[in-house]
């Protein structure tokens, strides 16, 4: 009986493990390998000779360092912005409203996710464009127009908008889980409301913020669509370099090398996020 159940459990695990091994780990492994190959500059064929040339170029060419810095920098900025924007919203939804209003607010937070991401990015082009909604408002108010479209500022705004719900939701979950008696207890022992926030609420909300930052940071890091649509000439992300190397120049090994770098950053980030409890609990 025990053996049969064991065999049964094993059989259940075969499909997910098979899927994971072949499609996920398999393709990652090929990515790893191809990063150490090269393209023959004459024929355009991939040469399967082991070389570190791709990485040498990546680390020596200042262009790629700037792209990497921009990508990581904007991802960090977006994360911080979303944390700041999410806090008051999450606090109100988690602890201040009745169940009916709470449901309504939750739906409103999630509502943008019902429409295509592309449509929403194009909407921002209409807002930020030269003759867009923003400049119209500024003009009506007698203020000088701004040319935000196709800049890093536009990128920052649109990314922050896109991933905000993903920061709000886990933060709500984290704040809801803090028992009210903990806040009472802190006040009881002499902590002012701001001290309660700093010493009790904030540390207990860290796992929620870490979970949210997986979207705001890691997903921003890998995106190339948004920079393509709202970024300017100087707004290329790592993803855009990878995209153009695969598509335009057909240099898959170089694209693989740059992706690998991104992968290392994301993996390192995930380990940090786990330390902060991003994957704990529900």
């Amino acid at each position: 009986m025990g053996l049969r159940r064991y065999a049964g459990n094993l059989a259940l695990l075969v499909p997910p493990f098979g899927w994971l091994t072949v499609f996920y780990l398999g393709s990652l492994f090929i990515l790893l390998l191809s990063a150490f190959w090269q393209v023959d500059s004459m024929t355009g064929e991939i040469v399967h000779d082991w070389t570190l040339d791709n990485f040498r170029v990546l680390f020596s060419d200042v262009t790629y360092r700037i792209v990497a810095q921009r990508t990581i920098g904007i991802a960090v900025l977006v994360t911080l912005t979303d944390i700041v924007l999410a806090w008051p919203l999450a606090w109100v939804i988690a602890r201040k409203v009745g169940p009916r209003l709470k449901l309504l607010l939750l739906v409103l937070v999630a509502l943008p996710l019902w429409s295509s991401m592309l449509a929403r990015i194009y909407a921002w082009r209409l807002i930020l464009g030269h003759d867009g909604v923003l400049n119209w408002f500024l003009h009506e108010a007698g203020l000088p127009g701004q040319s935000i479209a196709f800049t890093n500022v536009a990128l920052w705004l649109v990314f922050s908008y896109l991933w905000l719900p993903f920061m709000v939701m886990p933060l709500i979950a984290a704040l809801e889980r803090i028992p009210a008696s903990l806040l009472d207890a802190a006040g009881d022992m002499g902590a002012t409301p701001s001290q309660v926030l700093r010493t009790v609420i904030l540390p207990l909300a860290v796992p929620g913020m870490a979970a949210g930052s997986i979207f705001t940071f890691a997903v921003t890091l890998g995106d190339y669509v948004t920079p393509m649509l709202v970024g300017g000439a100087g707004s290329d992300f790592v993803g855009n370099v990878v995209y153009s190397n695969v598509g335009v120049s057909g240099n898959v090994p170089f694209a693989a090398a740059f992706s690998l770098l991104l992968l290392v950053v994301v993996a390192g980030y995930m380990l940090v996020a786990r330390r902060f409890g991003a994957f704990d609990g529900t």
Partner: protein
Amino acid sequence: MQDKAPEIVPAVSLHNLTKSYGHGKPVLKGIDLEIWPGEFFTLLGPSGSGKTTTLRLIGGFEFPDAGEISLCGEDVSRLPPYRRDVNTMFQDYALFPHMSLRDNVAYGIKIRRVPEPKRRERATQALEMVHLEGVADRRPSQLSGGQRQRVALARALVNEPSLILLDEPLGALDLKLRREMQVELKRIQKQTGITFVYVTHDQEEALSMSDRIAVFSEGRLEQVGTPQELYEHPASTFVACFIGSSNILTEAGQDILLRPEDVRVEAQGYVPSPDEAVMPGTVTEIAYLGPVTRCRVRGASEDDSILAILPSRLARGLREGEPVAAVWFRAAAYRLPASAA
């Protein structure tokens, strides 16, 4: 605790305290109460009687609709919890999960900016008092329920408040642990001399631990007194029934309390002495509880039913359905004051 010299200021003084929650349902309908320094004072009552609300008002977690709360003579009715010299031991312990036990205990004195070496010393002392000094570096999640409860107590003690509020702190513990903690709490209260205000619905716990008890019913105080006063001279039928087991007999429209341990069971046809009363009947129920046996005797009608608690060695021969006589000394029956409501 009677005959207080007039110059002693009460640790807690409640004057005409009222409170209702949303939809206007009154929870407290005018509470007047004085608790003296160094007392182990218990708020006792069934759930929903207002005892926990009273505690939360003293702690400052809620504010009264009307009335006044004074701590050591100072009116604190409108002050938030962090401005009151009171610490609370919460029902769910409310330990901070992200801190070690030592940091939990030291939280209050850290907030009050007690410098580090002194802080550590006081936290260790408080943990010693509850016998947990060996596990100071653990997290609350690594402790048993009983240990968490001790930490919660240490956390309240470390601030050396004039008053500690305890909200059914033993509710979640099993009976044996509960007994141990009752003794422990009482010991610590005596040792520190801090006034304890203790909320419970367990009348046995209240009797065994308290210097004085306030009995709550439906947002009012039924009676305030020592355990002995409450048990032997209850001010109302409610108090008589809530504290200990009781037989309530009616005589000329007045309730009379007869404690079951004052009732004997004799053979039918027993001839009473002039100062004894007798009710003939049959045994309807026998429950053996070890040292004592509970025995219910039913008289002529359904309503005439008397509970007797007998030493088990005297109850050995009794059988259900047996005709007997319930006997008691008239002097043991206590006339309850007519309920004024």
